């Protein structure tokens, strides 16, 4: 009963101008930060921290929490309209979102991503409210061997991403994993594949790599198909928006992905991108038409978006319940809380329930505000797809250049972004999917660090003696095998 009365008090706190303005401003800024390649949710939150110094802790957390929620949705806008994921997790949204736009149905992609994000964010927040304490305790008890198996489970999605080109998909993932080993080894401090270049000491940054692999490679592909003489007319005369029954058809996918996204979000280091990949994979495997994934299936958009938005609720679980930041954004949030003399952890629920429950209430309201603003804004986003190629292609290049520079203020990042763009264009030309490269880069660090920690702690046998590790291994093997078995069954 305490929980409900605290939650009601939290909602009561929102009944004022200041909290509501904070939510609306947070959602708008979050959508903009998410949609802009190069600005991640963590950067969006970090940039607003200085503006919260003079605000109360509650209002600060409401503002920053709203940015965090909305930034994950914002990333999908440019992913669907111009194949330029605004955030790493929106890479997965682009798999089916952009093909929908190419088919002249950007409204379906944008509408589905908005509704799935809202429902996902809502479910993630509900799970956060009701199960934060026991789930957080479970997550931090995981052994490195289990984290390694979690990464392997994440990598198993490659099997279904590749389809007939499975060998190419695995090759792409291996390349991503190998690229991830470039830089100073986090455990021994040895320089690996840096060629003595100090700019490579931290390896290749993820954001410039994904901007190059997705946005620039797409620009080069479009330029290759370009006919200088012909005037290209926009084919999007009137786009259709999904109706309620279309959304209703996606209910199982959204629900399943939201729960999975929240659970993945709880694990420190896992995060929205892995959640989106795993949910997409699960949606594809459970679909009656898995072959339509990657060609513009709204189910793919829904799975990715529901998962990455719900992972926000998950990521807040260890932050609030244990004081452990599991992602870059929650690390920034913990800093913002400390500025206001608020120490997250188990005592926070007892000592400052006003802060915790006003945040919970604000996150629920922020999802509704995001839906309203998203519906209104979608009419604007869609205009992007109507811009002629002659204007759009140079503009995407300009956005990509500043986006890759803004991450670390590094010119090297810009050059590597262009390099990844050319490599991505050639890879795609020969049928290599580029998403597994990103997946490899995302999971590489998690896999390597935990693999080595686990071996140091318990030798190689540790992966086969811990029950959770074995379960995850079996799930990974099953996940690898299912696409091949489905393919074989279809052939028979």
């Amino acid at each position, binding site marked *: 009963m305490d929980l409900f009365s605290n939650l009601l008090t939290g909602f009561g706190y929102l009944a004022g101008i200041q909290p509501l303005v904070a939510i609306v401003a947070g959602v708008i800024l979050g959508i903009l930060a998410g949609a802009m390649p190069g600005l991640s949710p963590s950067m969006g939150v970090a940039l607003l921290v200085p503006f919260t110094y003079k605000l109360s802790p509650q209002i600060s957390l409401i503002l920053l929490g709203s940015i965090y929620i909305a930034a994950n949705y914002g990333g999908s806008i440019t992913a669907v309209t111009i194949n330029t994921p605004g955030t790493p997790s929106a890479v997965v949204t682009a798999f089916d979102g952009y093909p929908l736009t190419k088919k002249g149905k950007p409204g379906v992609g944008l509408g589905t991503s908005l509704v799935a994000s809202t429902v996902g964010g809502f479910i993630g927040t509900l799970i956060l409210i009701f199960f934060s304490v026991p789930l957080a305790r479970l997550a931090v008890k995981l052994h490195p061997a289990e984290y390694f198996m979690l990464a392997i489970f994440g990598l198993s999605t490659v099997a279904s991403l590749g389809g007939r080109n499975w060998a190419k998909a695995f*090759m792409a993932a291996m390349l991503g994993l190998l690229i991830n080993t470039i830089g100073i080894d986090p455990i021994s401090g*040895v320089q690996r*594949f840096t060629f003595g270049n100090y700019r490579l000491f931290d390896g290749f940054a993820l954001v410039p790599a994904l901007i190059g692999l997705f946005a620039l490679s797409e620009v080069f592909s479009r330029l290759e198909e370009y006919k200088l003489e012909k005037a290209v007319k926009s084919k999007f005369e009137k786009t259709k928006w999904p109706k309620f029954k279309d959304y209703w058809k996606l209910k199982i996918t959204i629900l399943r992905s939201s729960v999975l996204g929240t659970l993945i979000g709880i694990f420190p280091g896992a995060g929205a991108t892995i959640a989106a990949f795993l949910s997409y994979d699960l949606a594809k495997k459970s679909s009656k038409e898995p072959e339509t994934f990657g060609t513009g299936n709204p189910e793919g958009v829904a799975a990715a978006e529901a998962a990455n938005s719900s992972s926000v609720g998950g990521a807040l679980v260890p932050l609030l319940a244990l004081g452990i930041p599991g992602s870059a954004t929650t690390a920034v949030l913990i800093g913002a809380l400390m500025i206001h003399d608020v120490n997250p952890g188990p005592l926070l629920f007892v000592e400052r329930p006003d802060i915790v429950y006003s945040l919970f209430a604000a996150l629920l309201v922020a999802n509704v505000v995001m839906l309203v603003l998203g519906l209104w804004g979608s009419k604007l986003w869609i205009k992007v797809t109507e811009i002629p190629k002659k204007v759009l292609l140079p503009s995407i290049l*300009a956005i990509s250049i500043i986006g890759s520079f803004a991450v670390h203020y590094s010119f090297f990042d810009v050059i590597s972004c262009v390099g990844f763009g*050319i490599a991505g264009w050639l890879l795609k030309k020969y049928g*290599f999917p580029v998403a597994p490269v990103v997946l490899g880069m995302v999971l590489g660090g998690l896999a390597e660090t935990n*693999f*080595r920690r686990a071996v140091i702690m318990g030798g190689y046998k540790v992966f086969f003696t811990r029950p959770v590790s074995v379960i995850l291994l079996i799930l990974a093997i099953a996940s690898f095998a299912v696409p091949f078995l489905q393919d074989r069954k279809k052939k028979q």
Partner: protein
Amino acid sequence: MEKIQYFSHDSGLYILLAILAVFLGLVVFFVSRSGKKEYTGRIVFPVVFMELAFLFFVIISGFSKTKESGVGPEVVPLLWITGIFIFSIILLIQALTGYEKKDPEWGNLKVVFIYILLIIAYLILIQIIGYYFSTALFLIGGMLFLKYNNWKVIISLTAGWLLFSYFIFYRMLYVPLPEGSLITLILG
């Protein structure tokens, strides 16, 4: 192992890179003149990956190894390198046995290469005349090259983007957009 280590750094590494480049050239030369010439790209790709894996393998031989724990900095890269070798062989077999389609047709490569040159020129210009001037030149040049000649749109889009970059990235986000060596020299 010591002989391999020689190629992992300094002059040995350059020699290795030259050998790999020559080998790749020979593969392209012979395949493009063989009965499999329509699969040249399909064959060259796995060869490039194998060369890359071999290069990384040689570099690994120069790592200082941690014997105590058994999981030094070389272990995980070796795992991925092994994977690259295995999948390269599978891809080669697929290309040679007809599992793969013939090489895709190339489109308008001239436009792509000119655009890549435009990007390179843009990146060089950023260092010399700064972000704002070079971006204006790039956007205008990029649109004109694609035969877009609505000057109202060209000017307003370029100006709008520069204003957005200035206010959002430079003023609000404190991104130090390059000012350019020439501009700094002139304006001090």
